[in-house]
């Protein structure tokens, strides 16, 4: 199953590329102008749980449509930062400002767990992502389109329990995409997947990000994943941004290339240097 998905996916991509190459190029050329993403401004952000101060003053500007990866050791506060951006936790001090026109449907989160409703069929699960527009007449059509984007159109009437881990996560991605969000936050969405599924999921994430132009914020513990996907990698240490690395390697990026490996190496060295000192 796993290998089937993997071998089928590139073929499908090739086919669609061959068919839609002219249009695709146009879309990509004018993308910066029509980028649907929202810029994000974070000023002096602090978050404490009781006496435990997890975030100690984060200042950050994310331009519209940027793909930002946040890495750090477990417990460094990277997931908390993401949950604050997504509005899942209360801010202790400071502020996060999105544009004023942002609606609740504009910010979506994808978690490490797929969090699908086991009692709803795949399509119905995707429709959940429409939020308040769930009752609209074109809900079905939009959900089916989103499901098609992640390559699971044929699974629309399945129960989630029969899907593989990677497929479930793709349904969760479709659910996050269906409302055409302008900011998409990923909380280690690929952490529970096996290595091969993971790579095909990374390609899928990159593709939908390029197609839809949302602002992407990816929390991950995998530095090579961060370097391969993001425009910019933030290293968080002790609740502060310790490093802000711009990844200017052109896309499509070749996995395992020397440039990516050296970037990964320098970030890892920085992350691990704290261990050696202590």
């Amino acid at each position, binding site marked *: 199953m796993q290998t089937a998905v993997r071998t089928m996916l590139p073929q499908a991509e090739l086919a669609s590329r061959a068919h839609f190459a002219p249009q695709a190029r146009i879309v990509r050329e004018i993308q910066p102008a029509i980028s649907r993403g929202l810029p994000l401004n974070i000023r002096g952000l602090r978050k404490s749980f009781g006496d435990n101060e997890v975030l100690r003053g984060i200042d950050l500007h994310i331009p519209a449509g940027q793909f930002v990866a946040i890495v750090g050791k477990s417990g460094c506060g990277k997931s908390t930062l993401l949950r604050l951006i*997504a509005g899942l936790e209360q801010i202790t001090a400071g502020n996060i400002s999105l544009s004023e026109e942002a609606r*609740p449907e504009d910010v*979506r989160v994808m*978690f490490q767990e797929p969090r699908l409703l086991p*009692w709803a069929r795949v399509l119905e699960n995707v429709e*959940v992502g429409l*939020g308040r527009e769930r009752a609209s007449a074109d809900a079905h059509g939009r959900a089916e389109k989103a499901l098609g984007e992640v390559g699971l159109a044929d699974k629309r009437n399945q129960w*989630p*329990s029969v899907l593989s881990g990677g497929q479930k996560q793709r349904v969760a991605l479709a*659910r996050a995409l269906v409302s055409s969000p302008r900011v998409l936050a990923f909380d280690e969405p690929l952490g529970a997947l096996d290595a091969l599924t993971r790579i095909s999921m990374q390609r899928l994430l990159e593709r939908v990000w390029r197609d839809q132009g949302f602002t992407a914020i990816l929390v991950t513990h995998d530095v090579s994943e961060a370097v391969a996907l993001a425009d910019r990698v933030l290293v968080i240490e002790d609740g502060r941004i310790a490093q802000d690395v711009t990844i200017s390697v052109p896309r499509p990026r070749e996995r395992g290339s020397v440039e990516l490996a050296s970037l990964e190496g320098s970030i890892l060295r920085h992350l691990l240097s704290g261990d050696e000192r202590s």
Partner: protein
Amino acid sequence: MSLIDSASLPRSFRLPRVDGLIQWIVPLLIIAVWQLACATGFVPTRVLPAPSDVVLAGWKLLLSGELVRNIWVSFWRASIGFLIGGSIGFVFGLANGLSQLSSRLTDTTLQMVRNVPHLALIPLVILWFGIDESAKLFLVALGVFFPIYLNTLHGIRSVDPQLIEMGRIYGMTDGELFRRVIFPGALPSIFVGIRFALGIMWLTLIVAETIAASSGLGYMAMQAREFMLIDVVVLSILIYALLGKLADSASRVLERLTLSWHPAFQKR
């Protein structure tokens, strides 16, 4: 792929039929041994009448209309009592599962009442209601209340909080969250409660009818004992077994229909 499909097709057709028969092998075997033991005189008919005698007694009672009337009366009491007690238990389970205030207000009281064996109330209930219908309905409702209350409460409290968070993120209102996330999540547990309650329902009813009643299956068995009609006594006991099985099967069908998403109920 097609190879696997064609191989699994005949098996999925054959399995349910074999399953349907296989569960009746043991009961039939017991009846056969029982008939044989009576026919050879190994068991005196004064102790245990042969199955054929029991069937004969059943046939006579069926013709006189007494059997149908008594079964109907018992069935009616059981269902009405179940509906009353079950609904109250369900409502309290929902309220206490969803509202902290309601839970603080009533849970302790309910837990105290739960620890009184409800059959111990029979003398009091007879004093209150006499041997009227209401006495039986009260006891059945009380017995059925607790398993449904406890399991509904447990089901609602154990709904995956990650799913609830997901529902909130995607902008579900409280009503929607209940309908789409909390209730379906609690349903498997509610069904466990229903199946427990069905068992308690029969137990309570039979005991109540045996002690104080003027109709019903329990009454029929007690009357038969008075007149030493052992075949009717055995008949009543067998009918309890069948009715219990029937109630259990009904709840299973309901489970299968509503929990088709659950891996345990998926026929592949």
